[in-house]
């Protein structure tokens, strides 16, 4: 098996995340839910497998009937990630505005006393 330095690097990062997140989750060091922990685990395990065995994505793409259209599949993945990102940004922005409204109300209470 021919493993490149880049694959090893990705594998190291993947292992770091899997191990550190597992320790944090089981020690209850952060407030991560089980779903969040499993999502992080699955993502990094898959990234590590793909880095170690580059032929695996092709195997999946053939089984899924995508054939040579793997790039389209990856592109769709990117689009999905961007949609999630924008959704998250919108949620954060709304939260920021809500916080400001509450803080403003509190500040103006002083005036209305």
């Amino acid at each position, binding site marked *: 098996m021919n493993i490149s330095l880049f694959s090893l690097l990705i594998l190291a990062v993947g292992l770091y995340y899997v191990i550190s997140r597992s320790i944090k989750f089981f020690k209850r060091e952060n407030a991560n839910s089980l779903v969040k922990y499993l999502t992080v685990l699955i993502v990094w395990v898959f990234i590590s497998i793909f880095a170690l065995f580059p032929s695996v994505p092709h195997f999946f793409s053939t089984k899924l009937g995508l054939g040579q259209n793997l790039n389209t599949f990856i592109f769709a993945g990117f689009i999905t990630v961007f949609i999630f990102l924008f959704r998250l*940004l919108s949620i954060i*922005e709304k939260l*920021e*505005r809500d*916080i*400001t409204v509450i*803080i*403003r109300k*509190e*500040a*103006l209470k*002083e*005036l*209305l006393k």
Partner: protein
Amino acid sequence: MKNDIYIVIPAYNEAKVIREVITEIKSEGFKKIIVIDDGSDDQTLKEARAEKVIALKHVLNRGKGAAIKTGIEAAQILEANIVVTMDGDGQHNPKDIFKMLEKLDQGYDVILGSRFADKSTNIPTFKILENYIGNIVTWGIYGLFVSDSQSGFRAYSKHALSLIDLQHNRYEYDSEVIREISRNKLKYTEIPIEARFTKYSMAKKKKQNIINGIKTLTSMFMSA
């Protein structure tokens, strides 16, 4: 007339200069001053209250835009006819308020103070460049070209305040006002103002670094 004019000053960690800023405004005859302490870590609120002005406190830092909006809402509660916004670092000269009031008397809704309208003013080159980029982006997104889109020294009539609807918390607020002028077809004009770039104010401005600039631009694009 000065009785229904409120001066709104957003202040974040301005304890060193806020009293001086308030005293200077008072010396021009403007007594109705609202200071919004935007979650300062220092004694800004205490210092402002020592000058017997209305001083309100944001318990968390929400940004210059949010602080100005709180000040404007406070002024509206107090039935202000005119609201003038000024920076809390002493950069603006309160003598310029008179020029703004003259223009409001002539029927304008919004008066924008421009640090760049007077070409003879000695302004650091990077400030000119920074402002020019801001002007171009504001024009591109909001469709109105002004010579100082990032100026905090502005005056609003009661009519303008009833129409302007602002959402942004931070520095993009300055450009958002331009959007609202355009959207509501408000009558506006720019007047040259004095900008006093002291060591103190320049040190504060450095905090508006390139990362914040990119964040401001992103936020402006997303709200376009």
